[in-house]
């Protein structure tokens, strides 16, 4: 069992099993996102028309903050008991570990989004005026954009002081184009005033670029100690 897909699958299965039994990441993310939604909701108290304009921004800011909670926990488990050191000396490809972690985070954040979306609809009385099915590619590509860089930067920030703070400091500036695309794409679909195609293409390009560069450089980062 040395091929990349097999090891990715094994690592992913292990992470999912651990998460299924502890539910640490998903619980903390869910509660955090819920708090953000409630606070936003009563600090703006928008009408239906206004909320359509601002919802794109609110939804993604909430998901971004919640995703950071999960991303910060990505490597913590591997640091205990020197699992990461063991991984370094093993002949397993580094990218298998990275892909497993990124896919795992993608699944966690997707579950969070699936659970939180109804709440947003209730609190903000949302109804898409544009083609609603386009929200699915925006959400999927956007989530991958956050998660792929987040997983990579989390691996970088485990070697810094106060690493929990370091991750958002690294992730947010680089994610600005992706965030802009997610927010503007979502707003375009909700208001139905403009097409979201450009933003979907931009997200796809962003994902492609950063997935490639992460896979190329992850081995360097893993072995940097």
């Amino acid at each position, binding site marked *: 069992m040395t091929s990349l897909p097999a090891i990715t699958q094994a690592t992913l299965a292990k992470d999912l099993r651990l998460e299924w039994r502890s539910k640490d990441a998903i619980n903390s993310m869910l509660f955090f996102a819920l708090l953000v939604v409630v606070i936003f909701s009563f600090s703006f108290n928008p009408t239906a028309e206004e909320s359509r304009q601002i919802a794109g921004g609110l939804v993604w800011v909430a998901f971004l903050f919640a995703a950071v909670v999960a991303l910060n926990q990505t490597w913590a488990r591997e640091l205990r008991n020197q699992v990461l050191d063991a991984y370094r000396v093993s002949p397993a490809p580094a990218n298998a570990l990275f892909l497993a972690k990124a896919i795992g985070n993608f699944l966690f954040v997707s579950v969070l989004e699936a659970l939180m979306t109804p709440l947003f609809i209730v609190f903000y009385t949302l109804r898409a005026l544009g083609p609603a099915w386009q929200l699915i590619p925006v959400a999927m590509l956007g989530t991958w954009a956050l998660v792929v860089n987040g997983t990579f930067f989390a691996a*970088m920030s485990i070697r810094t002081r106060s690493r929990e703070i370091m991750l958002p400091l690294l992730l947010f*500036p680089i994610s600005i184009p992706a965030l*802009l*695309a997610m927010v*503007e794409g979502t707003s375009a679909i909700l208001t139905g005033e403009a097409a979201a195609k450009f933003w979907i293409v*931009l997200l796809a390009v*962003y994902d492609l*670029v950063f997935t490639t560069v992460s896979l190329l450089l992850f081995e360097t*980062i893993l072995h*940097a100690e």
Partner: protein
Amino acid sequence: MKRLFPIFGVLTLILLSFALYEALIGAPTEQTMGEVQRIFYYHVPSAWTAFLLFLINFGASVVYLIRRNPKADAVAAVTAEVGVIFCSVVLVTGPIWARPVWGIWWTWDMRLTLTLVLWLIYVSYLMLRRFSTSSQTPLIAAVLSVFGALDVPLVYFSIWYFRTQHPSPVIGRGGSLDPRMWHVLLINWAAFLCFAFLVCWSRYRLERLQREVEETQALEALLEQRGVR
């Protein structure tokens, strides 16, 4: 090299004072904007210098990733620091100029936003260097620099589309620049480049010395331990 430093410093000082004179007195006053337009001679050269330094930072980071040369890393660290300073000058002088001319401090215009995002990326780069505890800081920093450089075209396209959707009150500075203004602008840029080079040079020497000291201290500590045993 060491003897060259003060000579170059004096030359830079002379050039900077000449550029200041030219910018404040020598250059013709702009017709519509008036005296406030003179900030242009600081704003634009600072921007060009900052972008050049960021470009050098990216080049040095790539060289470091390939060759693992500590000199390349020192260059990357220094150019990022000085670049952030020049970029801050751009971001401060911009609104001062924009307020009387456009009537607003800030707009999400392409160039403004791109400069701001670049500034944010490089500040996070400096934070990473500061907070890193491993001996592999140069490597991690070089990787982040590559990520930042790849981000720039994406930021550019997203803002470009964002802008075309939401037209802002900014009118393009079309038309040609007076040749005398070009002249003053280029003198100022030359002065700023010399100044940036001077600061980078002394900062580079400091950085190298600091690393030497750290290495010596580590070595001494190691030898001491052995002596005790």
